[in-house]
């Protein structure tokens, strides 16, 4: 599953840009139509109701608390590659509609076992249905040999 709608909000763009070390824009908040950082579509995770890497009420979380935590399977492996194609800039005020499909899958022998690579392609369209960003993500999971 993914986000159904991803509103590109000024406060969210501000918080994201700050985390990347950017100075605040003049006036404090990005204005409507200002370009968001190039990697901003990754934050569509905030609008995915089932995103597994966010604690949710009533669902066990795998971080530390009273003890050190648990290893949880199936959280997607590590991020190996990320590619973006910009059909136009992502702008404050856009409401993007993501749609994700699986891409290629392949395997490689690594130093400490087999590596399984998996590709996912997400198209972000605006409300008029025009493509804004195509994102291609490759994750890798290690299998003990």
């Amino acid at each position: 599953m993914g986000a159904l709608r991803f509103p590109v909000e000024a406060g969210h763009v501000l918080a994201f840009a700050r985390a990347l070390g950017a100075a605040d824009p003049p006036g404090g908040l990005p204005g409507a139509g200002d370009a968001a950082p190039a990697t901003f579509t990754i934050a569509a995770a905030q609008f995915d109701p089932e995103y597994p890497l966010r604690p949710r009420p009533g669902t066990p979380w795998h971080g530390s608390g009273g003890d050190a935590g648990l290893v949880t399977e199936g959280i997607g492996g590590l991020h190996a590659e990320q590619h973006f194609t910009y059909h136009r800039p992502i702008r404050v005020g856009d409401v993007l509609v993501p749609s994700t499909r699986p891409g290629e899958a392949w395997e490689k022998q690594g130093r400490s076992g087999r590596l399984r690579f998996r590709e996912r392609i997400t198209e972000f369209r605006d409300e008029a249905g025009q493509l804004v960003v195509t994102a291609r993500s490759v994750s890798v999971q290690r299998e003990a040999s």
Partner: protein
Amino acid sequence: MTAQASRRGAAALRAGELAVGQTFETVVVTDLKRTQIVQYAGASGDYNPLHTDEVYATMVAGYPSVFAHGMLTMGLTGQAVAGLVGTESLLRFGVRFTAQVWPGDTLTVRTSVTRILEGDGGPVAEFSVSTMALSATDGESREVVSGYAHARLAA
């Protein structure tokens, strides 16, 4: 040739200002703090405890410490590229994550002009992008991101 990237805001570079081989270096973070990783977790929505929970990362997952999200490193790299060409001019941006980024690392983005093409919509510059992490722990410098960016240029 190395030039210090200046702050250009959204203004696109002009074709005449660039030559193949020209290289820009930008330090995007000095002594990466765990707090900045937490800040990125909150903004991006990726709360994987490998990045934010030292107890979990070391005792359960067996890493020497928490480490930065790949997308934090890519985002910082993208800020350097955008500072050069302007976010509005970007056509493509892609990377491979070649090593982990740890707290204490200082990240330097090296952006080099590889080609200048005449596209349908005007000139386009292609850059190779490489981000190096200088470790506070062992003093070694390693490449953490290797990729490319394509940007439209003002004629």
